[in-house]
């Protein structure tokens, strides 16, 4: 475990140093993030200029949801997505051999090699929106709510990671995974609103097929004190199951990998 953490830290440092050379990217990222947050806030203002609450969610509460979605999106694009993208490319090009021959667990290795440090801007802007939302909450946030939120956010991040790895592993069977990425990117946008507003088929879809509900809505429910023990148990149970399944799925997929002439 300690070895894994050390390795992760090493890759993080190398990746960051590499990216820090390109300072201009930071400004562009900053601008992109500002535009994204700005439009999101405009949408929210528009919605609440026509109504007081959306399915029982007030404007500050929706800011909380939105903040979590942007923040988690930043986490995904900083670490999860670049790693999975590289994995898929390497499977296609037969370069995964280099990762597999290293004396380290292959799943760990493929999950920590890349980092896009500038995307951290999204984590920061998400956190800012989140803080702004929290400051507007009438009820305030108790310590236990905050702790529960952090825990559920962690659980959500693990769930999202597992889901991405499962999808990326499909690359062992399907060559064109780029369009799957596009699809996921689109679907992730649904997380900007509490899943309870969606019709049943969509709600089930973004809960169990693409686990956005567990990753975003559940932590938001924790902060707005509407989380029930049943939901917590379900989220934790689902995440744990998915983690184990992912492990098996990865090994299963790996058996399909035949490499390419090195």
């Amino acid at each position, binding site marked *: 475990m300690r070895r894994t953490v050390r390795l992760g830290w090493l890759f993080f440092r190398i990746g960051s140093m590499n990216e820090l050379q390109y300072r201009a990217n930071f400004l562009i990222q900053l601008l992109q993030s500002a535009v994204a947050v*700005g439009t999101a806030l405009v949408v929210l203002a528009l919605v609440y200029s026509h109504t007081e609450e959306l399915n029982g969610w007030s404007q500050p509460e929706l800011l909380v949801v939105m903040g979590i979605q942007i923040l988690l999106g930043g986490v995904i694009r900083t670490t999860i997505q670049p790693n999975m993208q590289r994995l898929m490319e390497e499977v296609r090009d037969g370069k995964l051999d280099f990762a597999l021959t290293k004396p380290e667990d292959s799943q760990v290795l493929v999950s920590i090699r890349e980092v896009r440090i500038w995307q951290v801007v999204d984590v920061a802007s998400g956190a800012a929106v989140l803080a702004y939302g929290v400051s507007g909450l009438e009820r305030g946030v108790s310590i236990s709510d905050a702790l529960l939120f952090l825990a559920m956010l962690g659980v959500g991040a693990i769930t999202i990671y597992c889901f991405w790895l499962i999808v990326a592993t499909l690359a062992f069977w399907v060559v064109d995974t780029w369009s799957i990425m*596009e699809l996921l990117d*689109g679907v992730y946008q649904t997380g900007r609103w509490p899943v309870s*507003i969606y019709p049943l088929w969509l709600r089930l879809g973004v809960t169990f097929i693409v686990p956005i509900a567990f990753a975003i809505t559940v932590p938001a429910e924790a902060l707005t004190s509407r989380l029930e023990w049943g939901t917590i148990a379900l989220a934790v149970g689902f995440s744990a199951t998915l983690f184990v399944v992912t492990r098996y799925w990865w090994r299963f997929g790996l058996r399909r990998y035949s490499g390419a002439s090195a």
Partner: protein
Amino acid sequence: MNAEAGRVRSLLDYYVTRGRTQIQAQFQYRAATYFWLIGMLAEPIVYLVVWTTIAEQQGGSVQGITTGEFAAYYIVWTLVRNMNIVFTPYGWEWRIREGQLSAALLRPLHPLHEDLAGFAGWKVVTILLWLPIAALLWLAFDPVLDPTLLEVGVFSLAIWGAYLIRTMFLSSLGMITFWTTRVSAIFELAIALELLLSGRLVPLPLMPGWAQEVANVLPFKWSFYFPIDALVGDLSRGELLGGLAMQLLWIVVLTGLTMVVWRFAVRRYSAVGN
């Protein structure tokens, strides 16, 4: 005169051939196109659900737009959105940075023709593949859509008008890449502005009055809101034809802008690579 006629005919011939090759090429990637179309559905479905929820809370409508009309708006939205996808400034950036433009410049045709014809061919494939998706959305969201024959006619023209406006708008933005190879900052800002003022986010009547005024004098509304409104809304004959005229006006203005900037821009181009 005869030479002119010959030129037009050969250009037409080019469009047909290029369009047809693109149709055949893109049709091979049906599955990829479908994934992509479905990924794009998330955006309108989310908006649709949000506004439907609000409408239901307020007894069935927001600012006179009923839930059924919202459904119709966002279903037609999906097609118009697809018509709005054209060669982006990022494409221009790539073209110039990688020196791809060199080959295009050697041809006896303006590179814009290649983009216009190629994407138009792709649109035909997209429209065909979109039809089953629209049918499913229809079943899922129960829209109210009852267009007259004239509205259908204007709509079928207006989606291509939208295609031309968007192509010319993004091409003129793309010309900036002749001066700087980093186009993303300006592009992102323009897209954000477009997102808010085109009707992509919400039907324009839901925007505050001043924003609607601004939208009236910008091209965005005519490439997005107008085609949808022509089919879904209840425009008079005058408004329908006036809308087409506005589209034409913007096509001319933006094409002119692109051509003028192109003249200066292409002089700055120095080939890179082979």
